[in-house]
């Protein structure tokens, strides 16, 4: 039998027991329709995530809460820049940021835990633009908050969802629409959930920075003051605050009204072609992350929400024009001109 003492001599093992009686600070977070009960031992984390405290943005949330327990320990070292590493199997998702900062998401029990350094506790950018969006992406489906790979803009309470393959130009078009008076909800991932018991949907964003590929600088002179950097998925991109850089109006929620599937065309012009609900549904189902068989209810709920959202007016938008010209055409289309 193998002796139970390992033979290699590595440095030090860090042991963190996440116990409720040491995580005495509590807060309720409302993230794109997801209700998250946070427990921690760190005032710094509470301060870092305080922008999510207000539940008034999501008046009729319907799903169960997710529990998030974060232990801050000064014995943990922070590696930065550290590439995030994610893996998942069955109902468990692992996320590590450097050697010592680790999170685990239990999708069956809707429970996430993590241990971080004090430096990370103080890093509001980490919580607001990385960890919390990741948590909504990983766990949202288990509580009826479905991530759709679409931008979302709002005009007078009516939501415009813009879907399209990666690289189709969703983000640049979103910025161009925001410059024409639409409010920006999201430029990349939109989280759709049921509005309480009503048969209506809410589309939410996470106010994450707008991510624009380097060629966007051709269309937006505002980007000339910035340099593209490597983003979380390794892509080189500008990540900028739309309010600060483009003076865009931002909204947290909207109600899906139009769906547009953006396609780049080599020919000039911008055409709006009706798209069947069936094809729209197939697009979203095809582009959704596969869910493990342990989560049949989440998969069913996601399909139900996709079915409901694709019952809106759907169009393919084939454009060979600049983002600004495409935005102008969409603006006219949505205004009924």
């Amino acid at each position: 039998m193998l002796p139970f003492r390992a033979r290699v001599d590595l440095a030090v093992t860090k042991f963190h027991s996440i116990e409720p009686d040491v995580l005495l600070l509590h807060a309720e977070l409302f993230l794109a329709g997801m209700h998250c009960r946070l427990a921690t031992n760190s005032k710094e984390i509470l301060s870092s995530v305080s922008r999510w405290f207000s539940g008034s943005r999501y008046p009729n949330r319907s799903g169960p809460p997710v529990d998030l327990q974060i232990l801050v320990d000064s014995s943990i070292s922070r590696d930065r820049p550290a590439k995030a590493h994610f893996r998942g199997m069955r109902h468990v998702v692992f996320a590590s940021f450097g050697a010592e900062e680790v999170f685990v998401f239990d999708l069956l029990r809707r429970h996430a835990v993590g241990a971080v350094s004090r430096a990370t506790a103080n890093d509001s950018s980490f919580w607001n633009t990385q960890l919390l969006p990741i948590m909504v992406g990983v766990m949202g489906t288990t509580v009826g908050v479905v991530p759709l790979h679409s931008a979302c803009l709002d005009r007078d309470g009516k939501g415009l969802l813009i879907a399209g393959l990666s690289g189709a130009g969703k983000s640049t078009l979103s910025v161009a629409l925001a410059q024409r008076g639409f409010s920006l909800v999201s430029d990349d991932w939109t989280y759709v959930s049921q509005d309480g018991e009503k048969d209506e949907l809410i589309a939410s964003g996470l106010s994450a920075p707008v991510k624009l590929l380097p060629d966007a600088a051709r269309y937006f002179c505002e980007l000339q003051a910035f340099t593209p950097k490597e983003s979380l998925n390794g892509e080189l991109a500008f990540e900028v605050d739309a309010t600060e850089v483009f003076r865009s109006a931002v909204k947290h929620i909207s109600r899906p009204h139009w769906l547009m599937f953006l396609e780049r065309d080599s020919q000039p012009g911008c055409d709006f072609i009706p798209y069947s609900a069936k094809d729209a549904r197939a697009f979203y189902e095809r582009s959704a992350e596969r869910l493990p068989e342990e989560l049949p209810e989440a998969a069913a709920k996601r399909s139900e929400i996709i079915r409901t959202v694709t019952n809106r007016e759907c169009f393919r938008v084939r454009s060979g024009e600049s983002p600004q010209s495409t935005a102008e055409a969409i603006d006219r289309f949505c205004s009924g001109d």
Partner: protein
Amino acid sequence: MSLAERTPYNHPLDVLRRFMPSPLEALIEFEKELILVETNDSSFLVPGILRESQAHSQASQTFKWKLLRDADVLGKIAEATIIVSESLVVVSMGPACLAGVDPERKELLAFVGGTVDTQEYQDSVLPVLGGLTQFAMGKKHMMDISFPGDIVRGTAHNA
């Protein structure tokens, strides 16, 4: 399976590698525990240490291991960080070894990096997997498991 045969797995809708194929299955005995192993790499079934069992795989006490060779991940096993929560125990030894055990479901899930060789697996990974299994079955306390190196307990007082 040799290192050369370990091909990276990439699927645009499976960024977490949840659905990496694991076609090999074996019922083994390890430290007196009966374990049903599902894997994509036969070198995890170390002959002489993991003994093939003749018992029936549906035995109610069977613990399950799903061990995936993560060919994309290069690098050695790092020092361990252990997180114990209400429902899961997770051990991260860097990207080269991530393991989690769910005691209620009697299930252990682990990713092992592409360059972790059999010796390193046997010396550093297997003892941890065995210890986690015994912990999950209530046969061992967490602090009795031997991880590589000495253990430092993190506490709330450090925060």
